């Protein structure tokens, strides 16, 4: 009936679970015809051992996924020079070669076609010997890797410059360098029916609640998806409150941030191929915390944090309050200002709400354009956008001059909190519509709705607003302000369930 049903009927049985055949030629045939068929990057290197009874061997690997010098020097040369005893055959021969000839730290025996395919795809070379139903997998991973560089999305003035790269092993070691303790644990999971992407769960045994670790593992295990190309896939699949715009899982590109979160009792999830580590649980306060707060002097850090809170208020509320004031409550604006706003709006054809949405749209377009374009062009775009469009729009009486200020301030303040900037756009829009319909009254309703939403949310069992709504002194020490390190004696109550002690005793130069 349908063509795929026909093809399915005639398809050969998959060989993945079959054991290897003692005959090298048959093994090669199946590899070429089935397991690794139609893949021209696979290299089959034939050679023979020396000695009286030379054995036929084949080294199979994927081109550019392995270290060629390593294979030549530590696999091919010793094999060619070796002369295994005549009486050895089959499994014994393979064990002899693995134990006495191959000079590699990572080698294991493989018995199935499917295993060989997986290994080769992951940069492992497989050695097959005629007469043996086993192969030797030699770890020679050597694909091109990006160097450890400063993360572009989270640059700091003061603080470590290392950022995660795409390699899972490297990333784990970067975190381990920060937390070199036997209590630092990692657990591997594999996600993706096609990609079998390796996912690592990182935590501190003596701090983190094991229930949390189990919950994270359970959620990741439950994912059934064909491919995981970035940690964003996992982030969306395991998050709480999936219909809420607020993030309930944090992500960072910095090993120091990941280590700090783990130290507070969180769990970090690293995904192979993604330079972004996920951290759970994620609370709203974290969106306003930046690693530099902790590296700078505490007063400076606290001030910057306050600026972030104020900026978020500005970026979400300015247009709404402006609309409410000019359309409903002109009596609340100082007289001089109200006259000049009125004058500047005299010939503008649109009501305030249309102006806000129009200019907000233009701003978002410019931003998106600037982000996607190569950096030099992006800068040009933003300058053209800011100066030319703004000026022209005002002199053409399309928008009023105060609106340019409102939109500009709103946009710039949004960049202060990158973690919440995308949501800020949505909140802003909601507030603007409410303010346009009901004035300040509507704006207040919107705020109440957002607070209700936030207080109903949870992230991995932890209330989303915890530490923001508490009055316990230890819990609010790292919220709106960042108190000095010698004051933060305990880890957050909601996260670290085992060992809450952060400072062992009263230390520091001026501990009270």
């Amino acid at each position, binding site marked *: 009936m349908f063509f795929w049903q026909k093809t399915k009927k005639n398809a050969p049985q998959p060989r993945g679970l079959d054991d290897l055949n003692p005959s090298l030629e048959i093994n090669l045939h199946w590899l070429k015809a089935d397991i690794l068929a139609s893949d021209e990057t696979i290299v089959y290197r034939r050679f023979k051992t020396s000695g009286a009874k030379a054995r036929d061997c084949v080294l199979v690997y994927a081109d550019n996924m392995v270290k060629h010098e390593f294979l030549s020097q530590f696999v091919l040369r010793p094999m060619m020079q070796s002369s295994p005893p005549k009486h050895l055959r089959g499994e014994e021969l393979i064990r002899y070669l693995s134990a006495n000839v191959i000079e590699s730290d990572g080698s294991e025996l493989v018995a199935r076609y499917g295993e060989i395919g997986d290994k080769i795809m992951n940069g492992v070379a497989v050695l097959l010997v005629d007469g043996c139903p086993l192969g030797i997998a030699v770890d020679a991973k050597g694909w091109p890797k990006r160097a450890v560089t400063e993360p572009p999305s989270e640059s700091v003035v003061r603080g470590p410059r290392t950022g995660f790269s795409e390699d899972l092993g490297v990333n784990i070691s970067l975190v381990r360098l920060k937390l070199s303790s036997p209590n630092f644990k990692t657990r591997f999971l594999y996600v993706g029916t096609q990609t079998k992407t390796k996912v690592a769960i990182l935590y501190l045994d003596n701090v983190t609640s094991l229930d949390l670790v189990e919950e994270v593992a359970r959620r990741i295990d439950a994912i059934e998806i064909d491919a995981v190309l970035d940690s964003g896939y996992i982030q969306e699949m395991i998050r709480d409150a999936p219909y809420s715009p607020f993030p309930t899982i944090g992500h960072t590109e910095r090993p120091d941030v990941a280590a700090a979160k783990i130290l507070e009792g969180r769990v970090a999830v690293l995904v192979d191929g993604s330079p972004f580590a996920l951290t759970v649980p994620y609370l709203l306060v974290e969106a306003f915390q930046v690693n530099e707060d902790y590296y700078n002097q505490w007063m400076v850090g606290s001030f910057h944090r306050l600026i972030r809170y104020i900026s978020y208020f500005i970026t979400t509320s300015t247009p709404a309050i402006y609309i409410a004031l000019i*359309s409903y409550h002109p009596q609340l604006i100082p*007289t001089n200002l109200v006259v000049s706003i009125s004058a500047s*709006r*005299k010939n503008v054809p649109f009501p305030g709400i249309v102006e806000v949405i129009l200019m907000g749209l233009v701003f978002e377009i410019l931003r998106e354009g600037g982000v996607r374009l190569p950096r030099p062009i992006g800068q040009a775009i933003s300058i053209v956008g800011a100066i030319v469009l703004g000026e022209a729009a005002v002199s053409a009486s399309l928008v009023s001059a105060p609106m340019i200020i409102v939109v500009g301030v709103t946009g710039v303040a949004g960049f202060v909190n990158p973690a919440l900037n995308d949501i800020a756009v949505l909140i802003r829009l909601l507030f603007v519509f409410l303010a346009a319909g009901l004035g300040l009254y509507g704006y207040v309703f919107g705020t109440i709705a957002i607070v209700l939403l936030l207080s109903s949310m949870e992230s991995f069992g932890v209330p989303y607003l915890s530490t923001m709504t508490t009055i316990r002194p230890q819990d609010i020490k790292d919220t709106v302000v960042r108190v000095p390190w010698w004051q933060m004696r305990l880890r957050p109550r909601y996260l670290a369930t085992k060992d809450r002690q952060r400072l062992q005793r009263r230390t520091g130069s001026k501990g009270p």
Partner: protein
Amino acid sequence: MRRGFPRLLSLLLVTALLTGCWDHIEIEALEFAFGLGVDQVEPDYVVVVEMVKTSGGGQQAEVEPLVLATKGKSVSAAGRSLSNPAGLRAFWPHAYVFLMSEQVAREGIVPAVENIVRSRYIRSTVWVFITKDCTAEEVFKSKPPAANSVSEHLNAIALMQETISGFIPLQVWQLSQAFAAEGIAAILPTVKLVHEQGDLVPIVEGTAVFKGDRMVGWLDGHESDILCLLKGIIQRCYFVIDTKVGENEFFPITYELVGNRVEIKPQDKDGKLSVSIALDLHFSVEEMGRAPYSFRDEAFARSVQAQLATAFTHWIREFLSKTQQEYNADILGFGQLVRRKEPQVWRRLGENWDVHFRDLPVDLEVKCKVTMAGLSSEPLRVRE
């Protein structure tokens, strides 16, 4: 729960949205009224409005004042005729001043101010003035040198009251209190026009004296300063007094009032009521001109203080006779004091207070002291 939820939601929305009153109006559709004046009450109200006309848009926004006079059966009815035929939507919450002409004030201000006190659009912080020798319309059409509009100009002056003196400003919220209080007559500041380089410029100077809600007379700027002094209002007034220096030489010396303490006490002696006023005034010398004397000379300082006391006693006597005999308006609130301190006497005399007030004996004791002489106690000496 499932069935109850929509009902609960609609109930919430209804209670939230159908309360209060507010209206959507775009800001550019409004014309901001800055000043309101009432020039005539009988037979028709003549109401003058100063608003600012905004025009332009884009980067060349312009603001200019616009004065319109309308007629109507009441203040609010006249105000309405701004919309039709004038075609303007006046917005009142930003108004600064409310003016009444002398004619309105003499006929009684209640019909003119009732609407202002009641209105929910006009703020209670609006300044109230009486125009002297001119109408409100003339004042609004005059040309202030610095401000965009007359209302802003008057507002700026009213705010500087402490340093410029010569009047006692009053806002709408104080009106009812000022006119309703027993035993004290109301006063309102006055606005008049002066010629200044070819332009008519409105200034705030002097006081209109009321009896009930009808105006009975004027006080000029100097008399208003004396009034402030006696009311204990701190104003940094300047007094230029021809001071006798040495034998028979007089020099105008400028004194600034820097502190005053007033004590007014009613006394009831053998059924005879009198009021005693004790004044303790502190001055600083602002300008001595050519007067050659040093304030280190104690005799001179004493003589100056004595002369000040004499001058002030004279002025206050004049002021009292004007209010008692000429206007017969108890603007200092002697009646109020009697009522508070000597209730029995008030019960006896309150009915005919006007008559008793006219001939009320006042004991006056003025003490003056020069406490500061600026940065130099010596006169500026010039080599002959």
